[in-house]
């Protein structure tokens, strides 16, 4: 005979403001099996938990129902409470009367009625609960970081420092990511490459880190602690073990028309190339799409040039399969193509640039050697207009509804850099809001205005036109109640940033969820910001949401800490809610085996004692360490032999019954 205790939480006024908790308590007392019912202001507080513990002891409760917030919030808390009181933690059920009731209903009568029904369903379920114990599995002591930008590098370095092996998969031929393309960094104006390249070198040299550059994740199987990942190492056509990175071949390559990705296509590179001087690993790669040898079979100049004999035209993609305990998403971002905003003239005039292009234009290793000139004709500009929020905070269709977060600060940086280096160039910034929440950020923006005389105009540009070889910018100056018509030599668009498109396919392989904007969803937006809801998958950098460098690095290290915490564990406690098959009911038909995504079900011949009758039968057996408890098998099973612990057929039917009563 079960003795159930029901504990109704007020959650301050969050629940009690809309649900008459007293009436809920009264109602559930009448339910069969309920031996105790009480309400309390904060059931999750120490004293609330103590109330539960003492009630368990005093009334000899065998099961607990807590009517409170979502089980996603405090189910674990109350399971611990139950365990502390000597109950099996799986004898706890939560009735979600906050998120699913008090917060969405305004009428007390109605909300109270619903709360009672939800409580009844939980009671009906707990009456059919059985004590469960969890199994354990080993943890593979190796992590995979997907993406080799500053986020991935930092996460990998921290994990490696803690003594664990970690692999970085980067689709480009070098690690470094976006940060390598930046000139200076705000708000300190230190050189981006100067602070990034030592980390790239560290990552390349660290014996715990293995780099898979020019590589992509091909497939992912398994689950937390035991992922199996196949990585495709694309053929570089250059042998990594032989190439010395001397660069001879890149200079000799006769195919010179390929747009240089590193410089945002503002100059060209050879078909065999090293992305940039500080590349790690510094190994050449042949871009087969543009290589004359691969296109016509005629060239082979690089092969003849290479004294290390590293060129290998016959190289093929290589698949590497490894096991990992944890996987980190660090797939980063790209800038949107602002061509969708034709009014700004991007694509029509070469002097209209994105901020990232401008970044390269200012950089000493950039297409102009760091000389600020108009891309259209190489003239020295007199006036540069920056336009903020191009495609950010835009719900009209071609933009992004969110704030890209970094543009205000980098635009201030650009403005300062221009004014610092070329005091003769005037700078105007059109802004909607200047957002500078960050250490020394607002001070930096004020320096742009006060020390460098950057003109900040509150308003948006309506149209950029070409006139007399220059650009004409028509925009509003809201604070001065006028429409401006400014002549400019360059216009720089602070285009929105968006998650790198590869994130979507990788996330899909990891079964990690993605939000409507393509950013990775975190397990909890405030309390678990570096974990994906998928156990064993962690988030580092902009793949989770727009971030600047210090934030990215902070999150990368936080992410590493979480990974280290996982890899430190000797064993992982498994989900106790696993499938199990009643051999006496099993037909042996293999339907369940076919739908199991984890291969957790196998079949074996067993001798059975069927109510005194001995028979041998082919029956399903569930590997509890592998089963993740989805329940697909339970529905595939026609005889009902397969059931899911914690969510049994009887339990769910009982809930249905209680709700429909």
């Amino acid at each position, binding site marked *: 005979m079960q003795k159930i205790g029901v504990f109704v939480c007020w959650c301050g006024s969050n629940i009690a403001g809309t649900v008459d908790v007293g009436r809920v308590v009264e109602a559930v007392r009448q339910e069969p099996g309920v031996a105790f019912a009480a309400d309390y202001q904060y059931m999750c507080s120490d004293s609330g938990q103590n109330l539960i513990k003492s009630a368990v002891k005093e009334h000899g409760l065998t099961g607990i129902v807590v009517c409170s917030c979502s089980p996603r919030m405090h189910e674990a808390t109350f399971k611990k409470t139950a365990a502390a009181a000597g109950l099996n933690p799986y004898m706890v059920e939560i009735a979600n009367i906050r998120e699913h009731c008090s917060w969405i209903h305004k009428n007390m009568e109605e909300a109270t009625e619903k709360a009672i029904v939800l409580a009844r369903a939980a009671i009906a379920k707990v009456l059919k609960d059985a004590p469960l114990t969890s199994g354990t599995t080993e943890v593979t002591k190796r992590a995979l970081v997907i993406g080799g930008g500053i986020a991935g590098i930092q996460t990998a370095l921290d994990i490696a420092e803690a003594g664990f092996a970690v692999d970085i998969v980067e689709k480009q031929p070098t690690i470094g990511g976006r940060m390598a393309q930046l000139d200076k960094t705000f708000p300190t104006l230190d050189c981006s490459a100067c602070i990034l390249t030592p980390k790239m070198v560290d990552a390349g040299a660290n014996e715990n880190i293995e780099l898979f550059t020019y590589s992509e994740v091909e497939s992912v199987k398994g689950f937390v602690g035991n992922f199996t990942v196949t990585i495709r190492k694309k053929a570089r056509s250059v042998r990594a073990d032989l190439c010395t990175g001397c660069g001879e071949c890149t200079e000799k390559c006769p195919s010179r028309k390929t747009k240089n990705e590193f410089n945002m296509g503002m100059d060209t590179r050879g078909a065999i190339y090293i992305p940039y001087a500080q590349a790690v690993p510094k190994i050449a790669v042949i871009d087969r799409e543009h290589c004359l040898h691969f296109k016509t079979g005629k060239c082979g100049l690089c092969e003849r040039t290479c004294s290390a004999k590293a060129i290998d035209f016959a190289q093929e993609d290589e698949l590497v399969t490894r096991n990992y305990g944890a996987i980190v998403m660090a797939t980063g971002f790209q800038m949107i193509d602002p061509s969708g905003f034709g009014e700004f003239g991007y694509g029509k005039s070469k002097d209209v640039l994105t901020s990232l292009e401008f970044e390269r234009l200012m950089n000493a290793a950039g297409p102009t050697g760091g000389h600020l000139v108009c891309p259209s004709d190489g003239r020295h500009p007199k006036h540069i207009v920056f336009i903020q929020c191009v495609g950010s905070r835009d719900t009209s269709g071609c933009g992004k509804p969110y704030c890209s977060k970094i543009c205000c600060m980098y635009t201030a940086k650009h403005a300062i850099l221009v004014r610092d280096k070329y005091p003769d160039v005037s700078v105007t910034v059109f802004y909607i809001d200047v957002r500078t929440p960050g250490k020394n950020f607002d001070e930096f923006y004020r320096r742009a205005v006060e020390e460098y005389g950057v003109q900040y105009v509150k308003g948006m540009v309506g149209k950029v036109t070409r006139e007399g070889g220059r650009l004409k910018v028509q925009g509003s100056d809201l604070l001065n109640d006028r429409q401006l018509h400014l002549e400019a030599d360059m216009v720089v668009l602070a285009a929105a940033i968006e998650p790198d498109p590869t994130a979507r396919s990788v996330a899909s392989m990891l079964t990690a969820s993605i939000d409507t904007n393509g950013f990775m969803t975190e397990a909890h937006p405030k309390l678990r910001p570096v974990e994906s809801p998928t156990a064993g998958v962690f988030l580092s950098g902009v793949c989770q949401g727009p971030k600047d460098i210090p934030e990215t690095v902070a999150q990368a290290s936080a992410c590493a800490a979480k990974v280290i915490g996982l890899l430190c564990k000797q064993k992982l406690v498994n989900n106790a809610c696993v499938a199990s098959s009643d051999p006496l*009911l099993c*037909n042996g*038909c293999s339907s369940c085996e*076919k739908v199991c995504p984890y291969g957790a079900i196998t*079949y074996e011949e067993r001798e059975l004692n069927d109510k005194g009758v001995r028979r041998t039968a*082919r029956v399903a057996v569930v590997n509890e360490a592998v089963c993740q408890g989805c329940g697909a098998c339970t529905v595939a099973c*026609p*005889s009902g032999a397969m059931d899911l612990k914690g969510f049994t*057929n009887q339990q769910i039917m009982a809930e249905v019954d209680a709700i429909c009563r």
Partner: protein
Amino acid sequence: MRELTNAICARAKELLQSGAAGRVLGWAPGEFFYDPTPGVFSEGRLNELVYDGFTAANLSKYCIAESQKEGKVLVLLKPCDSYSLAQLVKEHRVKRENIYALGIPCEGKLDMRKARAKGVEGALSFREEDGQVVFETLYGEVRLAREELLLERCLCCRGREYAGVDETLEYALPELPKRDRFQKVAALEEQTAQERYAFWRGELSKCIRCNACRNVCPACSCVQCVFDNPQSGVAAKANSTEFEESLFHIIRAWHVAGRCTDCGECSRVCPQSIPLHLLNRKFIKDVNELYGEYQAGADPAARPPLVNYTPEDPEPSAVLERGRA
């Protein structure tokens, strides 16, 4: 017909003598001429074996129990029955190594209900002559065209291919009609929801829950049926309401969906003449239309449609919009 029966017996005898099997699963005379029943024959009793217009029973399901016994059993399978056995083998329900499957030809089986509806009363025996069935009755001879008496399923015969038999017995027989088996399903789909509801309510209300459909169905071969399991939550015994009563046929059709070979035994044995095969055929038609042609039992390697998917499968909502202008 006698000639074909003799041929079957002769081949069966050879097989028994060669040691390919130790006994024969076939049809034995029933209480009346029109209800031969499944039976197991030793070599000596082979002369009792019946094979005529009324040996409609699908013997596949009996292989589950027979294959568990000592020695090999020779089972006689009409083309459509062979798919049932193949499906059972695919589901590991039958020990295939204990079975010798002999595919035997079929000229379509007869429905005594149709004969009665055409005025055959007090029938004592029957014989077949040139596409006609001649009933000897208390009131004299009645002659009816064979085609008029064919079982519903035989009017939509799916042909003379066998699935997974060890050998087939060649014997020339006239072709059977090949009507569209989904015609009635499509006609129902065309109707309004009200009309369909009225149709099914009328049919399902006739059910007396005798379980004949379940007992005869080769796909309904669970070790224990959910309706007999008080733990399942659907068995009538466990409930005070009439869940099992009202939803039995939906659940039964659901449980055999993707596994049902459309052998039509359910409708044949229903004492209330409920067209139960129309439920199964609805699932088969949907599967064929939505996920590609699938015939249960035909391909031992093919994944059954309900334990399979493609990322491009249509959405439930889109499917319900079908035909809704």
